[in-house]
């Protein structure tokens, strides 16, 4: 054991041992020489005699080395040193190869670390793999009575908790703030298993009506509004004018809910009160933890039985209830784009490998003579392969080190540049798994780019190389085939990447050309909340809203202004079913349904949303007039096909009878690219909910203003106008309509950007590859071309010959790439809009771009070929 460590130590400290050995041998020889001198020999004779007596010095040293450390390690050390020196001898090659590898490895590591954090790591709750959601269609909300029935009837879940959106105003605390939070059932936090940093979870019974005025804060809210006060527990907090007691603060990393209402900063108990019987108002998100040993399939089967039973008793209330793993809801949308980008960087790395392999082949060509000499001196073929491979290992190691640095900076830049919130992106780090990945791809890389050239180089014909003096007029056919194969595969890979990027670009332009129905330019919006203020009172709210809009209209630079409950594309989306008068009562669950928005007079004019028939909602549509509604074209087509809906009447629960007075153009609703759905607009002046008679759940208005100039410039003037009424009114979500659209399209734009960048890198690498191969091939064929020219070949013919070689390779590569892209096409389907993944235009354009790049890359060497002076060429060889 002791000897093992001594040997091990010598692997790394070989220099010292080597020096000692030399010194010892020298002294040994000196002593021998002395002896011979004493016997009467001259110093010179004695020196020679000593040498003879001693035997081979090199052999002795070699024996010494083998014994003092491990032979293989000793060899590796030597190979590394040798490789290092030979890499330094060709700094240009080394720099380019390192750059290509660092780029490939770094990009892969960066994207992988995002994939690892976002897709692979479990969610940050206790045993998060057992957490599921139970929702309509997997994502939609659920009613209180259904939740209670499921909770009480199931045997699959350890716990089933509910959460409901809550956005209270923090008042009597300057500045006032509109907060995002959740009402949660008492069992929800214990189910997640994350303990508060301070204080406690809600206690049993605290989610009963009357006992629910307690609140748990997020770390960020605690820090922002309470200066991280360590004695915060038990202190009061004024929300919507009601007093809450702070009972806990969650740790910094804690986030809930993870896929919807992700910005929640405070949690209060969810008390159902009278709503316990409510079966049609869907507002709860249900979270569950599977019992140990219960599988997802078992839970799904049980829920199917329970909901089928409830559906029979309460038709239309329990359809399509889906149990989904929580994680799937969190990362489901981002999975495809992320994997797509990971695939793209994988391609970039392959191309980088092909490029480095090229350069290595060219280099071993130049090093033929050196290799032959080593072989002649007794190095075995395996030994030479190992030596060259070690050199490649050094390259890959250097590339990996630089790649690590690049990935470290790259992930930071990527997260900063990402215009969309990628769930869990804040947990991205170069962790153990990422390092394992790095080691893995580095090993793969070195095998891909380094193995074949090393074997090929060592397999050269020894005597042939020596005779040719390393210049080899006849490059071996096999090596040429390998190079051609590399170029072709580079083009094929680049083709696939360019198709991906091209499709994203086409899809993006298709998205850009969508008409939202209204004019989104020069529109500014902001949410003004009145909850907890004196403006919230039922009597005062209508006057306040009207006066506010009048004041805004009077601002210089404002052309028009109005209000709405939820702004399209940015706000919430509420739907409601209704009945059409004069038609048979529809079966439960099959009544007409529509998105409904509540608008102040002037909304259609302000948004420039055209009324195609009838009239818009105006000032006179108030509580004294008959109830009116404007529907969109889609509602007209869906519910009054072939008829004129103007003058028709509908009835809505809790609102009453409404007469259709106008048809508006279809407008964007929630998703930018979604097909239009039926939508109805109610008059705010006729809505008791909106004006404050229906409780606190709608105590806000989204102000919209059309401006003559840049809308963002007017935001402070608008805020001042609001605050001139009451300094205590929270303003939030200040947004131009253009930004709202940009936010909706941020993800495809980001994906397009990433794929575009990677495809661009790939194109450059492939062009460099073909340039390298052509330049090398021309320099190898100098003699042949010289002979052709001297025999009368026209220079144009030479040019054509060389160009043709480059273009054929790119064409073959493109054909293979097109086939591959065709096969991979359906992977893209999910992220594309308005363009098929096998889009002909994209494929043809990519082919053209690649051919152009190949022509350009081949042109420079080709021109050089035409300038070959036959006399010089022949003399040189």
């Amino acid at each position, binding site marked *: 054991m*002791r000897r093992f460590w001594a040997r091990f130590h010598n692997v790394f400290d070989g220099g010292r041992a080597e020096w000692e050995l030399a*010194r010892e041998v020298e*002294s*040994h020889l000196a002593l021998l020489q002395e002896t011979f001198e004493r016997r009467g020999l001259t110093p010179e004779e004695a020196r020679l005699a000593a040498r003879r*007596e*001693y035997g081979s010095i090199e052999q*002795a040293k070699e*024996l010494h080395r083998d*014994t003092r450390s491990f032979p293989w390690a000793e060899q590796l050390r030597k190979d590394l040193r040798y490789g290092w020196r030979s890499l330094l001898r060709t700094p240009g090659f080394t720099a380019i190869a390192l750059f290509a590898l660092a780029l490939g490895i770094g990009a892969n590591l960066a994207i992988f670390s995002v994939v690892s954090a976002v897709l692979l790591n479990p969610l940050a709750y206790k045993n998060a793999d057992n957490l599921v959601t139970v929702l309509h269609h997997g994502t939609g909300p659920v009613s209180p009575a259904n939740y209670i029935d499921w909770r009480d009837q199931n045997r699959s879940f350890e716990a089933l908790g509910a959460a409901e959106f809550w956005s209270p105003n923090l008042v009597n605390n300057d500045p006032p703030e509109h907060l995002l939070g959740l009402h949660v059932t008492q069992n929800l936090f214990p189910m997640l298993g994350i303990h508060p940093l301070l204080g406690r979870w809600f206690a049993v019974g605290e989610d009963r009506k009357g006992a629910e005025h307690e609140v748990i804060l997020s770390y960020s809210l605690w820090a922002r509004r309470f200066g991280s006060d360590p004695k915060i527990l038990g202190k009061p907090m004024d929300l919507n004018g009601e007093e809450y007691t702070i009972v806990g603060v969650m740790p910094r990393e804690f986030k809930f809910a993870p896929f919807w209402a992700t910005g929640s900063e405070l949690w209060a108990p969810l008390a159902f009160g009278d709503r316990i019987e409510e079966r049609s108002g869907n507002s709860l998100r249900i979270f569950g933890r599977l019992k140990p040993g219960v599988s997802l399939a078992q839970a799904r089967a049980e829920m199917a039985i329970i909901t089928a039973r409830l559906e029979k008793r309460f038709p239309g209330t329990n359809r399509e209830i889906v149990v989904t793993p929580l994680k799937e809801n969190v990362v489901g949308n981002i999975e495809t784009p992320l994997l797509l980008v990971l695939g793209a960087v994988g391609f970039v790395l392959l191309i980088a490998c092909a490029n480095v392999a090229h350069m290595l082949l060219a280099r071993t060509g130049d090093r033929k003579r050196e290799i032959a000499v080593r072989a002649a001196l007794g190095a075995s073929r395996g030994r030479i392969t190992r030596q060259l491979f070690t050199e490649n290992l050094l390259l890959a190691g250097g590339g990996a080190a630089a790649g690590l640095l690049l990935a470290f900076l790259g992930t930071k830049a990527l997260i900063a540049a990402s215009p969309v919130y990628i769930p869990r992106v804040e947990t991205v780090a170069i962790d153990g798994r990422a390092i394992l990945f790095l080691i893995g791809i580095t090993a793969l890389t070195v095998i891909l780019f380094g193995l074949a050239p090393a074997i090929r180089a060592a397999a050269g014909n020894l005597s042939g190389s020596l005779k040719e003096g390393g210049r080899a007029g006849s490059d071996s056919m096999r090596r040429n085939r390998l190079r051609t194969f590399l170029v072709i595969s580079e083009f094929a890979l680049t083709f696939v990447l360019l198709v991906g990027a091209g499709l994203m670009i086409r899809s993006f332009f298709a998205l850009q050309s969508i008409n939202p129905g209204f004019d989104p330019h020069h529109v500014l919006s902001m949410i003004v909340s009145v909850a907890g203020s004196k403006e919230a009172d039922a009597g005062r709210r209508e006057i306040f809203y009207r006066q506010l809009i009048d004041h805004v209209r009077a601002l210089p630079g404002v052309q028009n202004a109005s209000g709405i409950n939820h702004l399209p594309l940015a706000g919430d989306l509420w739907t409601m079913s209704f009945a059409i008068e004069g038609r048979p009562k529809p079966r439960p669950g099959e009544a007409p349904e529509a998105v409904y928005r509540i608008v102040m007079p002037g909304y259609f004019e302000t948004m420039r949303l055209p009324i195609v028939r009838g009239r818009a909602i105006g000032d006179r549509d108030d509580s004294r007039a008959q109830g009116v509604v404007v529907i969109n074209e889609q509602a007209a087509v869906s519910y009054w096909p072939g008829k004129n809906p103007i003058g028709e009447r509908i009835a809505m629960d809790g609102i009453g009878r409404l007469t259709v007075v106008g048809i508006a153009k279809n407008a964007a609703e929630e998703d930018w690219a979604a097909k239009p759905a039926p939508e109805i607009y109610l008059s705010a002046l006729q809505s008791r909910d909106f004006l404050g008679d229906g409780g606190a759940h709608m105590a806000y208005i989204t102000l919209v203003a059309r401006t003559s100039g840049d809308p963002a410039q007017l935001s402070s003037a608008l805020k001042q106008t609001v605050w001139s009424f009451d300094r205590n009114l929270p303003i939030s979500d200040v947004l131009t309509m253009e930004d709202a659209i940009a936010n909706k399209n941020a993800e495809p734009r980001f994906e397009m950007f990433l794929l575009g960048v990677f495809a661009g890198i790939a194109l450059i690498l492939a062009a460099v590859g073909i340039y390298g191969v052509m330049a090398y091939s021309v320099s190898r064929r100098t003699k042949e071309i010289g002979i052709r020219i001297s025999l009368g070949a026209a220079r144009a013919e030479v040019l054509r010959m060389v160009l043709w070689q480059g273009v054929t390779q790119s064409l073959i590569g493109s054909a293979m790439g097109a086939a591959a892209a065709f096969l991979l096409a359906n992977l893209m389907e999910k992220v594309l809009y308005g363009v098929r993944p096998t889009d002909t235009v994209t494929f043809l354009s990519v082919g053209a771009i690649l051919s152009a790049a190949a022509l350009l890359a081949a042109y420079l060497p080709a021109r050089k070929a035409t300038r070959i002076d036959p006399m010089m060429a022949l003399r040189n060889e």
Partner: protein
Amino acid sequence: MSSGEGERIAVLQGTLDLIVLRTLQTMGPQHAYAIATRLQQVSEDLLHLNQGTLYPALVRLEQQGRIKGSWRKTETNRDAKFYAITKAGEKALAEETLRWRRMSGLVEKLLSEGA
């Protein structure tokens, strides 16, 4: 190791360490050249080794902690690495000697009985 040199015998595998240790025990600290010379003298030139082949044994023994090398001056005022036997070396020598005696006795016995 040299073989086929007429009557000279090659060092039996594994015995070189034993011989070196014994030499150092009887003669005190010695440099490699002196050890090699001593071996030739004792064996009356029957034992022949390329002097360079002594090094692996010295390295091995030193790594095992049985001898310790240090740089000193010879009588003729030259630098040389002198090796001295350590306590562990003494112990190993005793064990190895015993083992060798048993082994050679056994071989001797077998050979004489078989004759």
